[in-house]
């Protein structure tokens, strides 16, 4: 609680700014991790509860690459993203392809099954301990912002969030692939008859979503550490963030992450005891006012 002093206003300002920065960083981390899910759920219409599992696979590969193989942080990110996509290809080919267009509950069953399998395998292969991805020297120290210091990796996460948002927006709205993707989603049969190879479009978007999951898993690992249960532990958070933003909308997801990040962080600063209430009441309020999500497309 702010102390009563002559500098009250100044102090309050500082606190507000400081909490604001925390909120921004947390929101951006959420965004980087969940945006891949927005792609699968909104554009491919798959309730992909295994999203966290792919983020976790990315994290494990990156951890292994840095700790055991001595790779550089940047190289490890690349290896992990590519590695996760390679693992995901057969999964997409043999499992996901069967549930495109299936009822939501069937998708839930399948993707929860995949999640259970991944958790079990991770526990068996890597053991139940926490795994870390050592940051490079430049991202380790605190950075002085004048009124407070912030961890450099948080600034890095913010930058990643901005970059991912921009790149995705460009890919979907401005490239020919984006046009094909949106066409396939809106009317697969029509798109196919116009010469769009929907199967490939779906496979590529799935790869993009999985790659984003892996990337998010690594960038967010400082806040959400990698361990076998990761895949289930944060599933609800991802699902909530994406739905609040409006599945499939990049700006919507960004807005939702920043908003929920702000609510969560402020709630935890002001009334940590009731943090859960704050967060979920806010979610209910937002969903009731915007049933399709903040910037969801009307169907």
């Amino acid at each position, binding site marked *: 609680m702010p102390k009563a002093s002559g500098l009250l206003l100044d102090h309050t300002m500082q606190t507000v700014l400081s909490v604001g920065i925390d909120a921004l960083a947390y929101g951006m981390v959420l965004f980087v991790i969940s945006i891949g899910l927005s792609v699968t759920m909104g554009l491919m219409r798959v309730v992909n509860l295994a999203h966290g599992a792919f983020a976790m696979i990315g994290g494990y590969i990156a951890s292994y690459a840095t700790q055991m193989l001595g790779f550089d942080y940047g190289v490890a990110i690349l290896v992990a993203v590519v590695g996760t996509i390679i693992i995901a290809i057969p999964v997409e080919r043999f499992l996901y392809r069967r549930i495109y267009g299936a009822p939501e509950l069937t998708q839930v069953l399948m993707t929860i099954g995949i999640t259970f399998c991944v958790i*079990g395998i991770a526990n068996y292969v890597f*053991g139940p301990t*926490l795994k*870390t991805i050592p940051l490079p020297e430049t991202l380790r120290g605190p950075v002085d912002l004048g009124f407070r210091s912030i961890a450099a990796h948080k600034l890095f996460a913010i930058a990643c969030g901005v970059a991912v948002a921009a790149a995705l927006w460009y890919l979907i709205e401005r490239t020919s692939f984006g046009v094909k993707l949106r066409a396939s989603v809106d009317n697969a049969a029509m798109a196919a008859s116009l010469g769009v190879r929907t199967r490939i479009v779906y496979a590529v978007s799935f790869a993009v979503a999985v790659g984003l999951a892996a990337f998010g898993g690594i960038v967010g690992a400082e*806040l*959400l550490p990698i361990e076998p249960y990761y895949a289930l532990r944060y599933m609800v958070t991802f699902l909530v963030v994406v739905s609040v933003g409006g599945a499939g909308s990049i700006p919507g997801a960004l807005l939702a992450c920043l908003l929920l990040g702000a609510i969560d962080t402020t709630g*935890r*600063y002001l009334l*940590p*005891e009731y943090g859960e209430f704050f967060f979920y009441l806010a979610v209910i309020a937002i969903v009731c006012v915007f049933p399709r999500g903040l910037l969801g497309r009307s169907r």
Partner: protein
Amino acid sequence: MKTSILAALAVLALSSTAFADTIKVGVVGPFSGPFAIQGKNFKAGIDAWMALNGAKVGDDDIEIVYRDLPAADPAQSKALAQELVVKEGVQYLAGFYFTPDAMAVTPLLEQANVPLVVMNAATSAIVTKSPLVVRTSFTTWQTSAPMAKVAKERGVKKVITVVSDYGPGVDSENAFKTTFTAEGGEVVDSIRMPLSTNDFSPIMQRVKDSGADAVFAFLPSGPTTLGFVKAYNENGLAKAGVQFLAPGDLTQESDLPALGDAAAGLLTTFHYAVSHDSAENKTFVEAARKAIGNPAELSFPSVGAYDGMHVIYKMIEATSGKQDAQKAVDAVKGLAWESPRGPVSIDAESRHITQNIYLREVAKAEDGSYYNKEIATFEKQGDPGLAALK
């Protein structure tokens, strides 16, 4: 048909366990799921005991039957215990990582004529629920209260407590507050945060604003600990000289490699450190590491399990393998021995373990890894939480 014959045999076996030469011990713990590492430690402790002391007591073979209970789930716990007693015919129940799971089993014990040896669950009240409960782990009060004395000794005047908002967290907060206030210190603010908190920066901001000299924290061991300790460092509290005090759950050995530099210098009070310097511990650690596979995964639940097996073996000796829960429990009341954690005894009245609590500092070993270095000892600590219950 086959199954019903088997079932009939099982009933037969149950009624004649007194003369059977295999004595079964049912162990319930989190062997999968988010707390799998703690269950793994149960098994390592038990395996280590059996490796060092044999799988026989007198003429009787000892067999361990494991049942998985991934998260706190009292209904499932009761069903498992019932199944172990009725179907598997176990003579002893042991394990139990979470308090509600142990609580759920206590009403069964008398009718089943089975003692319960709690190897972890750390809420003081469990031993009061049935006279057939013995505990070989610790209680949150037992490990948290000495920290208040440490704080006082080190000249800390104002403390802010930050705990996870659930049973053990609240216990820990009460234990510290009660003791620290009695010592003349001041607790300026107490924060309870939801278990699901991921980002601790706003909490650290509160700590900063409170103007306290030290923060006393309790979180369940695991991923949140990592985020919490990192946030403590990154928000400049370590630099500003705000002391970090906590019970040893926060720096359990299996989390230390992940915590790394961030944990250096943290002060914790606890009943066991893998690094404890004694011949008993050396033997134990060697056997337990072999059992667990990856030496970095060994941490405190293993010693609770190891000593739990010690108690169970004594019970079997005292009853010469016959099923008599009350006699078995009576036999270990006041039992004293040299555990890997130091000298311990079972308090005759409460049936909880009396033990040394150590002040430890996270230090860097020669090989660059971190460990809990014991720097002070509070001898023969009982459970202050039981007194607080009254």
